[in-house]
């Protein structure tokens, strides 16, 4: 039986880039294990009410399979010490090293071979058994009352509704950054970070399709982890990231960062229930959400102070041509997704699928080979009907037989039922 094939190629692609549920389970087991480690009595952090939680794509439910054979998953984790550390008494360095000591002990206890690696804002632990993970652990403490109020006000000014802004601001935290001028001294101006708040904002965008999602899942969204929402917005972000990862496989430092893609996609999303439609709309709209002046791509939940695109105009990164690469990527993505969704040429499809997506889309190709010529033949047939066709003895529409008289196919559903009655 025939099927509509418009939907197929994107779905096929999504299936090939999504992560198995087991990877999420594994990630969860990892950070829960780490959480327990921080809570044990010998842990230095245990006095500070530690909380380990996922952030980034594992939190948002937008993880994709790593590109390439030996790719690793990035598992971004927050490590929030909720009590006993304050900016008036402790330095960023103190917090970073406090968390680092417990992580080092964890590494030894779990026999992780690669050393604990300090990054500017986090600790990296490479955990490899059957699934390779990079765990990036970001130490933080809760943000003060005044800062939260300021964040909330800034969000409301940008058009957030009050309750959402409040909810988001409550999760704000101060993080450590060894490039910060006052990294080693007592200072009040730590960097603000709010991954959980960002996730709440992202969810508010996904919820534009709430009714549809709940119907599909037969459950309240709030009872499901974000990854199980399988919302069109999440799927769009996965597709964009996958295309980007393939395009920048050889020079990953130049690629547009995930948070920029995610933010622009979420701004562009209008609640479309259908992933193909959502993708087409997002690709068309997302460029328009890049501002002409700084901040170019503001963090929606910290619009005054954080520009996700700050590296675009940072001279130290000029050699990476980040802005140029963003626009180049966007153009290419429009073109490549356009081909995958609409082409009737199996050769072109195969080329684009291999080059831009590192995949084969065999079903789509087979479908095209089957229906490509048919599509053309049917349109020709319809043209013939429009200009006066005949119906042959076997019911074939063509040039011979009974002349097809003009008529119109009638009515809509309601009229149909009335007629029948």
């Amino acid at each position, binding site marked *: *039986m*025939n*099927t*509509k*094939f*418009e939907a197929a190629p994107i779905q096929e692609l999504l299936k090939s880039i999504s992560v198995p549920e087991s990877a999420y389970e594994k990630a969860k087991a990892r950070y829960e294990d780490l959480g327990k480690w921080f809570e044990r009595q010998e842990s230095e952090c245990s006095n500070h009410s530690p909380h380990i939680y996922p952030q980034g794509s594992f939190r948002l439910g937008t993880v994709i399979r790593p590109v390439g054979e030996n790719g690793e998953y990035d598992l971004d984790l927050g490590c929030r010490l909720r009590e006993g550390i304050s900016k008036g008494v402790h330095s960023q360095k103190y917090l970073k090293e406090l968390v680092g000591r417990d992580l080092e002990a964890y590494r030894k206890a779990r026999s992780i071979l690669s050393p604990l690696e300090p990054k500017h804002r986090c600790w990296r632990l490479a955990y490899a058994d059957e699934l390779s993970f990079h765990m990036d652990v970001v130490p933080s403490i809760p943000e003060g009352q005044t800062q939260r109020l300021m964040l909330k006000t800034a969000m409301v000014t940008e058009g957030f509704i009050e309750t959402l802004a409040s909810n988001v601001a409550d999760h704000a935290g101060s993080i450590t950054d060894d490039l910060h001028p006052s990294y080693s001294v007592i200072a009040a101006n730590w960097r603000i970070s709010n991954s959980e708040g960002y996730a709440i904002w992202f969810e508010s965008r996904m919820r534009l399709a709430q009714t549809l999602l709940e119907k599909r899942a037969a459950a309240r969204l709030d009872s499901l982890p974000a990854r199980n929402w399988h919302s069109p917005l999440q799927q769009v972000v996965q597709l964009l990231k996958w295309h980007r990862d393939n395009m920048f496989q050889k020079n990953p430092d130049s690629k547009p960062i995930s948070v920029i893609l995610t933010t622009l996609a979420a701004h562009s999303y209008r609640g479309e229930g259908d992933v193909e439609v959502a993708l087409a709309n997002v690709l068309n709209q997302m460029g328009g959400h890049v501002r002409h002046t700084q901040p170019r791509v503001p963090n929606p939940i910290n619009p005054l102070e954080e520009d996700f695109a700050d590296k675009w105009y940072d001279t130290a990164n000029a050699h990476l041509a980040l802005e140029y690469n963003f626009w180049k990527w966007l153009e290419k993505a429009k073109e490549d997704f356009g081909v995958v969704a*609409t*082409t*009737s040429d199996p050769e072109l499809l195969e080329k684009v699928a291999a080059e831009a997506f590192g995949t084969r889309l065999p079903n789509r190709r087979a479908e095209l080979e089957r*229906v490509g*010529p*048919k*599509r*053309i*033949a*049917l*349109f020709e*047939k*319809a*043209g013939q*009907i*429009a*200009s*006066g*066709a*005949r*119906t042959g*003895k*076997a*019911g*074939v*529409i063509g040039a011979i*037989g*009974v*002349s*097809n*008289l*003009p*008529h*119109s*196919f*009638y*009515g*809509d*559903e309601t*009229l*149909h*039922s009335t*007629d*029948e009655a």
Partner: protein
Amino acid sequence: MVTKRYIPRTRHDPGKHLALQCVHMRKHFPCFKCSLMRGTLECLGEITPSDDCDTYRIRIRLRRSGTPKVRVLNPEIQQSSKIHMFPTGDLCLFDHREKPWMEGDNLHEKIVPWTAEWLVYYELYLLTGRWLGTEAPHGSTPKKDQPNQAKLDAAADDKNN
């Protein structure tokens, strides 16, 4: 005698009209097996409206003084508001408000060719998600019987893409 001339003969003898339809169908569309029983003409046959299309098993029924009912028996057609089908599964082939079925109308001249057209547009609908045949707009004055060229033109991109 004189008045009798003004009344069509078939009106007096609907059975004869059905028999005539049966003869026409057998002559023009031997792909249908037609039988006339208890005042109903039933034609069963298979239509492949175009080389690339599936083959559809069709049943046409015409009762005395009735409107023809056409149904696709196989393969199963999924109901959709986008395709022209009654909830019973019968196909909507023409706008009866504009030109109701008359006893002088012939199955072989109208119903079979229109069914073949319906199948072409149905297969196009499966590929494009749209009905590209001429439609009588809902709730307004029926359109004149113009082939829907504009619609086809609009969809021409689909063919080429």
